[in-house]
């Protein structure tokens, strides 16, 4: 099954997507196709215990009965699931036995493929000794496997914080994984979540013990490198009673001329008085001008605020992907629990985004806030789709939703689908929405003050998104602003 990577150099073809480089390294990639033996092979590669294999097989059997959903306001041809490879991992340069990368344990510094380390360094992610000294802990995921997790040992020894790859957690913390896996997003939840459960590649596992305030932000950086490979990571974040953590994920992929599938599942569990802040800056390759290639970002993210006074906050800046289908949600079970969703979704060229959130109010006096900013440029379509559901038990629940759209140019679209289901008369639900244009008058006004059109658009758009960017961790806010500027290049004819 081992193959030498075919060397492709598509870098020159695409100038605006600077993360679009391809890393050339020895990889092990499964042949294309999906069947029960592939599922078993993935599990075997990772040396998984029987319960994990059973979880996968149950999901796979169920998946076979499901149909690819096409209700989102995005058009794409049905995918050929036999045309993807479901496992790809860089091999360590220093070892050729398949016990290393395949054992599921994150390799030590000396074992990280130098080409892979270089790729991450180019993305501003430092592994090895430099990573240990950084202000932030990183789990670096390259295609299907976690290649390095910095600060993992120090965090565990000093604070009891578990921060490791999902594969690692299956090996070393099976009781925790078994307790929480599939409890927030069950394997049968939806088509892509079900596929993920069957072929889950890797992901990050976080457990913050009772009363611990995680001293550094934890982060995962996802890199899809191989062509025609799906990435199916599963991330689980658990904040035990009274704890808190800020978790950040970043994503990118090389420029490829065919769709790459990214079907992740994220499960967050927040116990009483705990707080999780989950931030995403998503910069997957959006495809070229003609809609060739790009990432299909079909992701299920959901968190449960289990305990009283728990709080979960999703903040996302989405600029990449050919198609985004993603609704980070909060199930507010605990009384007085709080859910928040702050989102900036920018689409340009022919990108299609159907994104939003779900806030399910179950507990008493639960509170949720939704601030969504959608920006459409080029020939793109940008949809906000959100559900606020107040169950009969949610006495005194409150929601505030603000949903703003901005259009740049005349060939793009913005759409809003807010769904409200209120089953308790004591609930208060507010919804505000605006649509605005970056007008020619605004651009001329800026130009007359000496400001170039691109700078003017970037300034106006960043102003529009300010409320959300203020919620991102500082370094990420800067990154997100730059990303917007890059993603908007050439958006005005």
């Amino acid at each position, binding site marked *: 099954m081992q193959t030498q990577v075919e060397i492709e150099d598509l870098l020159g073809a695409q100038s605006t997507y600077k993360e679009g480089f391809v890393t050339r390294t020895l990889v092990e990639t499964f042949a294309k196709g999906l069947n029960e033996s592939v599922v078993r092979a993935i599990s075997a590669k990772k040396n998984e215990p029987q319960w994990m294999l059973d979880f996968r097989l149950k999901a796979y059997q169920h998946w076979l009965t499901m149909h690819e959903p096409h209700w989102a306001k995005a058009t794409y041809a049905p995918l050929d699931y036999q045309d993807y490879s479901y496992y790809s991992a860089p091999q360590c340069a220093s070892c050729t036995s398949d016990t290393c990368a395949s054992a599921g344990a994150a390799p030590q510094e000396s074992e990280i493929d130098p080409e892979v380390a270089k790729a991450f360094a180019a993305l501003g992610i430092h592994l090895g000794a430099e990573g240990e000294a950084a202000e932030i802990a990183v789990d670096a995921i390259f295609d299907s496997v976690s290649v390095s997790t910095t600060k993992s040992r120090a965090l565990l020894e000093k604070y009891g914080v578990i921060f490791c790859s999902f594969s690692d957690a299956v090996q070393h913390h099976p009781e925790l994984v078994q307790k929480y896996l599939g409890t927030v997003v069950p394997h049968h939840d939806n088509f892509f979540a079900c596929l993920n459960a069957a072929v889950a590649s890797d992901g990050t596992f976080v457990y913050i013990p009772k009363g611990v305030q995680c001293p550094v932000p934890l982060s995962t950086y996802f890199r899809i490198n191989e062509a025609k490979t799906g990435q199916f990571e599963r991330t689980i974040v658990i904040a035990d009673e009274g704890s808190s953590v800020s978790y950040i994920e970043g994503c990118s992929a090389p420029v490829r001329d065919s769709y790459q599938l990214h079907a992740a599942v994220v499960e967050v569990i927040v116990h009483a008085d705990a707080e999780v802040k989950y931030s995403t800056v998503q910069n997957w390759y959006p495809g070229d001008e003609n809609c060739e290639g790009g990432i299909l970002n079909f992701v299920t993210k959901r968190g449960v605020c289990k305990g009283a006074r728990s709080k979960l906050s999703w903040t996302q800046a989405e600029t990449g992907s050919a198609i985004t289908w993603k609704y980070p949600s909060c199930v507010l079970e605990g009384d007085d629990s709080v859910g928040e969703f702050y989102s900036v979704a920018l689409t340009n060229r022919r990108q299609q985004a159907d994104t939003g959130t779900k806030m399910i109010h179950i507990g008493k006096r639960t509170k949720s806030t939704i601030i969504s900013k959608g920006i459409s440029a080029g020939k793109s379509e940008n949809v906000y789709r959100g559900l606020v559901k107040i169950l009969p038990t949610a006495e005194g629940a409150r929601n505030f939703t603000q949903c703003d759209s901005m259009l740049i140019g005349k060939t793009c679209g913005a759409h809003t689908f807010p769904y409200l289901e209120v089953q308790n008369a004591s609930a208060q639900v507010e919804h505000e929405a605006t649509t*605005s244009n970056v007008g020619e008058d605004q651009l001329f*006004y800026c130009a*007359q003050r000496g400001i170039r059109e691109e700078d003017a658009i970037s300034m106006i758009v960043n102003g529009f998104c300010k409320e959300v960017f203020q919620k991102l961790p500082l370094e990420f806010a800067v990154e997100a602003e730059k990303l917007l500027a890059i993603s908007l290049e050439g958006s005005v004819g």
Partner: protein
Amino acid sequence: MLLEVENLQATVAEKEVLRGLNLNIKAGEVHAIMGPNGAGKSSLASVLAGREDYEVTAGSASLNGEDLLDMDPEERAQAGLFLAFQYPVEIPGVSNKLFLQTAVNAVRTAKGLSELDMFEFSQLVQAKMKLLGMRQEFLERDVNVGFSGGEKKRNDMLQMALLEPSLCILDETDSGLDIDALKAVAQGVNAMRSPDRGFVLVTHYQRLLEYVAPDVIHILYQGRIVKSGGMELVAQIEELGYDALATA
């Protein structure tokens, strides 16, 4: 010559608006351009500033010897042309401070000067605001959002003071501007008058001229300047009206 306009002809939406306009302005001078509705006053300001929907069909215009018509709007601004808008545009979410700093640095970069950092810019803007009698809170508000007519004008004047252009064109065509707005414009112009700067006041009525004394007055009529002179022209307009004066 600061501004040299020769036989300028332009159309907007295939309608002729300028029909062979000539205008020369020396540094240090203040010129007022008056005329009836539809004479082409706002069109002149728009064509000189480079608004996209206007098409120049003949003639030339240069600023300090540089061909204006060959430049993009931002290049004209960087070259020293400033247009005070009749209705300054609102930009929600962008603080006035950020907008002003971005504009100042864009013009400085074009001139080959180093960009001002936050502290240097803050010093500069404080000095200019003092000059115009403006309050601090102005900087923190979003560009022109919720500003009164007078505040918007004052904001434009602040931009003018910061960018230090060599030619300022003030489009005050609308007669409906309140007295505060008018005073703000007059105060800005008077504070900025200098031997190396020229002004063009485009106006419908003489009210503005009570606060700013121009050196030359032009009458614009059917896309051409048909008469030039001193303050005595204002009295003649009052007495005879534009039509009679233009055809006399």
